[in-house]
């Protein structure tokens, strides 16, 4: 999205309910700033993230999508993030294979105690996407609000 001639990326962050969503809450509790471009969607576990959701976000105009979950080994459901890790590894490789910039997708493990890491991750991701510019390769022009 362009605001006053400046590119403002739309970022969707999927956060697992148990670790990363709590980590995001913690960064709020600690008043750690990160750009408002990031909008969080709560999912029960990182393994709930269907590749279709990521593609949907890009279709509707997202410029970057990030998945945050419990650290490997800490999953509330014991194994969910391990499955998510395999799925995202392969999906991101495929997107890159199709010529989609790899920087637009990311997985980061954030525990409920890592409020600072959450904020730092989001700051970094927003900066990366801002540098990269608008998502042109995976957009659906019909969905663009101008």
């Amino acid at each position, binding site marked *: 999205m362009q605001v006053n001639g400046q590119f403002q990326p*739309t970022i*969707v962050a999927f956060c697992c309910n148990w670790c990363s*969503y*709590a980590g*995001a*809450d*913690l*960064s*709020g*509790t600690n*008043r*750690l*700033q*990160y750009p*408002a471009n990031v*909008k*969080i*969607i*709560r*999912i*029960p*576990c990182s*393994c*709930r*993230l*269907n*590749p*279709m*959701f990521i593609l*949907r*976000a890009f279709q*509707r*105009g*997202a410029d970057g999508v990030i998945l945050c979950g419990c650290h490997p080994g800490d999953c*509330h*459901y*014991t*194994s*969910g993030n391990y*499955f998510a890790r395999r*799925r995202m590894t392969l999906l991101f490789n495929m997107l890159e294979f199709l010529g989609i910039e790899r920087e637009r997708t990311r997985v980061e493990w954030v525990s409920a105690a890592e409020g600072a890491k959450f*904020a730092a991750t989001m700051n970094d991701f927003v900066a990366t996407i801002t540098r990269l510019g608008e998502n042109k390769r995976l957009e659906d022009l019909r*969905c663009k*609000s101008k």
Partner: protein
Amino acid sequence: MQRIGVFVCWCGSNIAATVDVEAVSQALSHEAGVVFSTNYQYMCSQAGQEMIQAAIHEHRLTGVVICSCSPRMHENTFRKTCERAGINPYMVEIANIREQCSWIHKDKAVGTEKAIILGRAAIAKVLLNAPLTAGTSPVTKRALVIGGGIAGIQTALDIADAGFEVDIVEKEPTIGGKMTQIDKTFPTLDCAACILTPKMVDAAQNEKIKIYAYSQVEAVKGFVGNFTVTIRRKARYVDEEKCTGCGLCTEKCPQKKVPNAFNLGLDTRRAIYIPFAQAVPKIATIDADYCTMLKTGKCGVCSKVCTAGAIDYHQQDTLIEEHYGAIVVATGYNPIQLDQFDEFAYSHSPDVVTSLELERLMNAAGPTGGTLLRPSDKTHPHTLVFVQCVGSRCDGGEKGKPYCSKICCMYTAKHAMLIREKYPDTEVYVFYIDVRTPGKNFDEFYRRAVEEYGVHYIKGMVGKVTPQNGKLYVQAADLLGGQQLKIEADMVVLAAAIEPDKSARPLATMLTASMDTNDFFTEAHPKLRPVESPTAGIFLSGACQGPKDIPETVAQAGAAASKVIGLLVKDHLVCNPCVAESNELMCNGCSACEKVCPYGAITYIDKEFRGPNRTTLLRRIAQVNPAVCQGCGACTVACPSGAMDLKGFSNGQIMAEVDAICR
């Protein structure tokens, strides 16, 4: 058509300072489906909640969006508020505009804009919410305890005490576990048998407790409140009903050369045996590996001497099936094998023993009748060297364990003290890395060994033990004294690391309970839920969860029992309604979902469907057990057809949120 109410909370100034709450409620009032939108200072307050309830009635709301603090804070509060006003609690969605908006932004315009978007996403989601009803499942009011050591016995006694039936499955012929082999207990030095055997008798006599000794869990099906367990009762070749435990057969059996497992092979027993005098149940067992009759068909002495006619050479293993509401794992520990620690000469000299073997060598019912004698020549040892941390605190590789075995410091102090007390002519050396004695009266106990009993505690490790000319030459370091010691010892005692029993891993697979890399069972939360497994209905007691001494084990056993009782007193369990659900019309029956389910919540049935032209088709379809499913959603992504979806976090709902955010 849904009628949505939007309630924007100021949270005092927490939200209102960086978000224009009036603008947010204004903007959201124009969203499709929204019929009412307002803001208030404290939505979670009594007045705020009443305001929500009044609006629900007045505007006949079907769904509610609260823009407030994190759902982790007040989602439950608002769900209950709405439930009291007559709408389904799962028709509530929270937009997190405090932790994830007002608190992280400074610019009010930015905060307001983001709050509106988050509100829109919540509205988009709630429009697709469906009322959910938490299901219930009945609870079988009976518990199973796997393992009949002190942990299992204590758990069973406590559960029985509360009035519930409880079964103990023990793989050995008697309950009692490791504690039966221990001579004295620290820090009080009272005799282990004296405090354990009455408990074993209590368990046997308690009418609520049923003991399946010489039995193993074969299969576990079901879920919390409703487990079905298959138990293999191994053939003893002795009729349990008839055997009186008189022990005549164990004296007459001509096969005398069987290593006595109870005494860790330090002496021998007969092929038919009762492990020890106070065994519970006190029933003879034939060791099929050694019985001449079972191997060659010739002998039959025990059968001839048994006046009760209890011997049955044709007995077979039997499988029984029982139903339980809760399962307690109490599979305990074993000392590790020491064959990888060649430097201590454990396999080269019988005078190098493990601490557990020393317990037997000092026990009045042990192979030496309680007199400490060297196993090699049955002489009195004068110099004893204890080596701590053998196989504990090791890093990497195949050799040893990375953790501290926790109990060794105390039992070694105990051994050293007992030996010095009984045989003042001995010199006792303890080589330690660190002496770790936290615990009530523990450090005092260790200091007594040093100060009153003159045990030589030396900071340093033993490097090598060389058996030569009937002696054990011990080369060791004295780090504080700054010298290398060479001690001529008569006996060396190794404090071997302890590890979970080998039966634990296959059991964990059956129970779908998780384990760490050392095969200790994982607790649901290391601090707040230490006696529960992450798998609902599975509880942990004793050393199967981590190294523990007896007092800790008993405490944890009681804690596990209280958790079990808390479960069994319920007639029904309320389930989390946000569980997976398979659409049978789309299900391929491919088993992908089952393979990623950590809870074993998915099963398959063959079901008949109407086909074209009045035909019927038999199709394999998945079914989710809502009582077992925890709602992680792994299956929903594994499912290629999209038949599997998650209630409360459905594909449609999440995509609606995505759309609202990216709009």
